[in-house]
């Protein structure tokens, strides 16, 4: 392209954005690809910013590399790690990396830029050799402890003759994912004294773990056996979250899992805070990450983002506590804006931009790293979705066009639930439309209160809005959201 053409394009782009600022919705956030060195297989397992502003990234082939955003250059920090799936910066020369066999403290002691110490923090958990026994973390709780997560083994593969950790045949119930060695399907607490203790059970693939700023713990899991659809759990110590295989490592457990009735398992579990409807919203949710209040990333400060591997999407979760339990709604945050699939790890940079590392691991996914910048302004979106005794309140980021917003026919609710059973996934059960009985708009035109014909706990309420604009004519960016009603207020 000739220089004159480039300039013409630039001028036109500037011109368009001057005239139609409010209609160009994607301008609120822009996505760019991060340059990668040749020869790298850029499948990202872990990502964290070092205190000196460099991004530490762990890749599939076992290397940890540092990216300097100022100079756009990469340097090697460590190599030879086994499927590293988590990085946590300690200081400019040290980091913790979760690899398959252990949590490792990497340290560059001689200042040459590359780690020379690979010391084990903990390897006090089993490995059967089953490929699906991925290990995640470490996620700091802010009090000096860390959470680590351990996948269940896949029924698509067996265990090795030689395992690390005691083999328990009870952990292999014959169908679905299993737990042949400790503590597969668990979240573990690594104490300040480096002691690894069981924390919570019932996970299938706890790849995404995050603490909220207030100390609450959230973990994503994947559709599969005992999981009708993908989930976000609010995790509390000593609770069980539904996938049964891990139970064999509970203290005192001696039962054959095949002999326990499903109703008993059902009564033992804590349900998901938020369900991500399969084939619609998410098939493979990964990292949860809270938007810090301290950075300007648009109107969603304090809310939770969840990356997603199978769709070109990051989800936004609107949480609230109802009757002492956490629940809420999910909605998309970044659809069709240049974001690719494979979204696995996320980290906010010192400048407030959001970095997204991709992976595939031979599943659906992608490679590379993308960076999302917030360009200012207020996108037109649902800011909050709150459950009420008879329906929902929707709060918008901008004042509404009242004519559209007050039209009941513009809103369509469907409700359904997912079965809890040993089978893989679940169809949407008892799916029914729910009529809107009454609608009111707040005086400031930012809130729509919807009263429904029926509200039942235990259902996902799937809301689609046909067409909604702001008072100034900006179209609603995301028009479908899903509220998981565990409890009614």
């Amino acid at each position, binding site marked *: 392209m000739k220089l004159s053409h480039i300039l013409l394009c630039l001028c036109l782009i500037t011109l368009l954005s001057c*005239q139609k600022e409010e209609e160009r919705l994607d301008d609120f956030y822009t996505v760019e690809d991060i340059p990668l060195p040749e*020869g790298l297989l850029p499948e990202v397992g872990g990502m964290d910013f070092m205190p000196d502003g460099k991004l530490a990234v762990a890749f599939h082939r076992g290397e940890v590399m540092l990216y300097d955003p100022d100079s756009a250059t990469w340097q090697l920090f460590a190599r030879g790690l086994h499927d590293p799936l988590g990085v946590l910066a300690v200081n400019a020369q040290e980091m913790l990396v979760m690899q398959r066999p252990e949590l*490792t403290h990497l340290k560059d002691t001689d200042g040459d830029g590359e780690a020379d110490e690979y010391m084990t923090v903990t390897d006090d958990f089993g490995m*059967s050799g089953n490929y699906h026994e991925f290990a995640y973390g470490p996620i700091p709780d802010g009090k000096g402890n860390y959470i680590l997560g351990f996948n269940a083994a896949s029924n698509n593969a067996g265990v090795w003759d030689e395992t690390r950790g005691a083999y328990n045949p009870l952990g292999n119930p014959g169908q679905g994912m299993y737990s042949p060695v400790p503590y597969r399907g668990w979240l573990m607490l690594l104490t300040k004294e480096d002691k690894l203790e069981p924390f919570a059970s019932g996970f299938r693939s706890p790849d995404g773990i995050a603490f909220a700023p207030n100390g609450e713990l959230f973990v994503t899991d994947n559709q599969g056996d005992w999981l009708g659809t993908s989930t976000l759990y609010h995790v509390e110590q000593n609770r069980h979250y539904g996938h049964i295989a891990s139970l064999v490592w509970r203290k005192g457990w001696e039962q054959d899992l095949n002999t326990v009735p499903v109703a008993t398992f059902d009564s033992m579990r804590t349900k998901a805070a938020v369900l991500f409807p399969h084939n619609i919203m998410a098939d493979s949710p990964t990292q949860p990450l809270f938007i810090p209040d301290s950075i300007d990333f648009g109107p969603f400060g304090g809310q939770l983002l969840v990356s997603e591997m199978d769709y070109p999407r990051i989800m936004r979760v609107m949480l609230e506590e109802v009757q002492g339990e956490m629940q809420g709604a999910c909605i998309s945050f970044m659809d069709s804006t240049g974001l690719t699939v494979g979204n696995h790890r996320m980290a906010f940079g010192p400048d407030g931009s959001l970095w997204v590392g991709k992976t595939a*691991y031979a599943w659906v996914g992608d490679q590379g790293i993308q960076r999302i910048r917030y360009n200012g302004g207020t996108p037109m979106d649902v800011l909050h979705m709150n459950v009420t005794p008879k329906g929902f309140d929707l709060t918008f980021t901008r004042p509404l066009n009242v004519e559209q917003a007050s039209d009941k026919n513009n809103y369509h609710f469907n409700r359904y639930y997912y079965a809890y059973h040993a089978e893989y996934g679940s169809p949407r059960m008892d799916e029914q439309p729910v009529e809107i009985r009454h609608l009111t708009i707040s005086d400031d035109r930012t809130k729509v209160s919807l009263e429904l014909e029926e509200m039942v706990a235990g259902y996902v309420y799937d809301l689609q809005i046909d067409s909604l604009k702001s008072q100034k004519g900006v179209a609603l960016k995301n028009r479908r959201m899903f509220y998981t009603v565990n409890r009614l207020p």
Partner: protein
Amino acid sequence: MRIHQLPLILFLLLLGGVLALSSFIFQQAPEKAVREIVIKAISGLQYDTVRFQVSPGETIKITLVNTDEMAHNMVITAPDRREEIVDLALAMGAAGQDQHFVPKSDWVLAYAPVLKPEESYSFTFTAPQQEDVYPYVCTYPGHGSVMYGAIYVTNQKMPPLAQDEKTAQGRQHPYPDTYPKVYRTFLPDTGPASMAIGMTDSLSYCWDAGACRFRYLWKGGFVDMQKAWGGKGKERAEIVGEVFYREQSEAPFRIGSKDHQPVPSFMGYRMQDGLPTFTYRLDKVEVSERITPTLEKPGNKRLMQFKDLKEPIWFVRPTDQRVDVYVNKGKWEGNYLRLSPEEAKAFTITITEKKPEI
């Protein structure tokens, strides 16, 4: 909206001005400066640049920098003539030195002469009009089969590097992948928490961080990671070469009594000159183990250090008949070598391949 009109008019005026100016600049612009490509010869018989792209007819400046400890040159050849040029260079024998191992051939398009370590050399190269892939190769004897890259003379996109057969095979990382190296991965005939250590390009061993012990030693290559990295992690890495020693005992070191098998606990490793020194606990005793290759015969030497011992230790005699075992301290009692706490502070175990019987 009225408020926007004035800036808009100003903007349009400015736009017109910029466009007029830019087309003027474009027409008057002098020839672009010649692009420079810097290629380093690095250790492990490699160029740091495995390939690059130029437009047909484009003239570039190529600078070869030799950062290696060996001499290297660089010859650009006609498409698909790399191997023939390498063979011709080899055929020049010792006399080739004076001609920088660059054979007289129409297939040699340009070259940098043999450079000693730390030397560099620049030359210009005008890409042919004919779109194709033009190899560059080090024709110094013995280097040409692995040390080469590819110039893509085209305006089209290059193929993905992972499937690019025109570049030197085996590049799996964005940094020079030289020996020694450590890969933690799933390996055959060991525990799941093991690692492969390539001490040299032809001598490697497996160390098990679960059981905290040496597992086996092989010669002839390292590991093939293609399947292990290609899928979900299901496949084990393949050993390249021939295993010539396996340590059979599940607990090669006994503490306190020769029947007592201590409980292992892995503490990690420190890298020194590219090789790890492992530290672990056997019961409560801290052990360090540094493994280096032997020089004359295929094998390795382990420097063992047992810290703060209060009682003797025993080393179980390896039963693999394919090797010679030598320990520089202690006393054999049948199949057990007894080492006093003082002796166990630092001793070496040397394991080398036996000479094949005639």
